[in-house]
């Protein structure tokens, strides 16, 4: 690991003031610490957000579920209000990594890292959530811009995420058995704005499978999702799964997610 200056601010204002240059925020560290160990990531200043109290917590209203950026996956998975309001979101959180990762990893950390195979981006895009930062609100569709890339500006801090409550939703992940990341994961939701289908693990970033959304808008059934054949040309291909296999998985998992929403 390269050396860094460690800072642990007590307030959001102190955290933002400490950011600058190549400084990085440290959330749970479940990706960042490992990347730093491998010297794949480095920062002259590391700003530990764990003591910034108002970045944590869950609140549920009639319209949405708002989760603080530093809320741990286990807190979301075990939250009765989240499970009652958006069971598909609690399910997704319960399936991230393993119980030790869920005890330490955070929502904001996952989104800022934007791993192409992470679970939370699928819920954020699938539910059409809004990412609230220290300076603005960003629509989920505009947030993920590329491989490990987001719309966040340097020093911009995720404060919370508001997930609109859907009529129903479900997430199905075909996971890598060792890393537990998604080889492909599909989040299907019936929202006020229509059917949304978000896919993680299959390309360089989370995306909406618009062809499946159109099929499910005509007829919300597992068969309708399974019948859609997606092109494989821009799907990811690696030692775990080829592009054609991933393309097929998207339709299969979307159909299973539709069944699970019932």
């Amino acid at each position: 690991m390269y050396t860094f200056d460690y800072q642990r601010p007590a307030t959001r204002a102190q955290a933002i003031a400490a950011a600058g240059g190549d400084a990085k925020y440290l959330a749970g560290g479940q990706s960042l610490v490992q990347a730093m160990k491998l010297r794949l990531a480095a920062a002259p200043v590391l700003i530990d957000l764990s003591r910034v109290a108002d970045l944590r917590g869950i609140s549920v209203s009639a319209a949405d579920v708002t989760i603080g950026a530093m809320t741990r996956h286990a807190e979301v998975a075990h939250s009765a209000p989240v499970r009652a309001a958006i069971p598909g979101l609690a399910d997704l959180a319960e399936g991230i990594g393993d119980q030790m990762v869920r005890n330490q990893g955070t929502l904001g950390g996952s989104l800022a890292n934007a791993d192409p195979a992470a679970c939370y981006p699928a819920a954020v895009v699938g539910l059409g959530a809004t990412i609230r930062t220290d300076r603005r609100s960003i629509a989920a569709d505009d947030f993920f811009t590329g491989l490990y890339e987001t719309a966040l500006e340097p020093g911009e801090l995720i404060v919370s995420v508001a997930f609109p409550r859907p009529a129903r939703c479900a997430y199905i992940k075909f996971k890598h058995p060792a890393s537990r990341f998604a080889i492909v994961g599909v989040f299907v939701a019936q929202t006020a704005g229509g059917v949304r289908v978000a896919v993680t693990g299959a390309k360089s970033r989370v995306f909406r499978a618009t062809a499946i959304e159109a099929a499910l808008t005509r007829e919300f059934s597992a068969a309708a999702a399974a019948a859609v054949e997606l092109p494989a040309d821009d799907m990811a291909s690696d030692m775990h799964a080829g592009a054609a296999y991933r393309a097929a998985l998207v339709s299969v998992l979307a159909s299973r997610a539709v069944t699970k929403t019932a």
Partner: protein
Amino acid sequence: MTTESISLTVNGQPRRMDIDPRTLLVQLIRDHLGLTGTHVGCDTAQCGACTVHVDGRAVKSCSILALQADGTEVTTIEGLATGDELHPMQQAFRDCHGLQCGYCTPGMVMSAIELLKHNPQPSEQQIREGLEGNICRCTGYQNIVKAVQQAAGA
């Protein structure tokens, strides 16, 4: 090298020291405190051998900085027993021979305690899924599952 001071409680004992900010929690536990019951297996967050409890939450001590545990209460495998009396999960692993080479065992025990905290009566399937963050390279899972079942009073 700049150092940072850290205060935490490990197995009930208050500790205070100055460390390199890069120190991982597992390095503090093993190298600074000499508590070598916590093992480093993969060192890449996949095997769970380094699992300890931080304020009662099971975490992988190879995946967090020691400074992230500042002010917390850490429990390692050495802190489970009360005198000569093993923790019920340790006793169950002993009774059921829930180990082969023993390398993964400390992490398995710490992880299994976390599992029963949230689900005191897990099914066999739930035990297998709940322990998916811990890898036994001997593939000795049968008796590990039996041990967790015994500890759960099944």
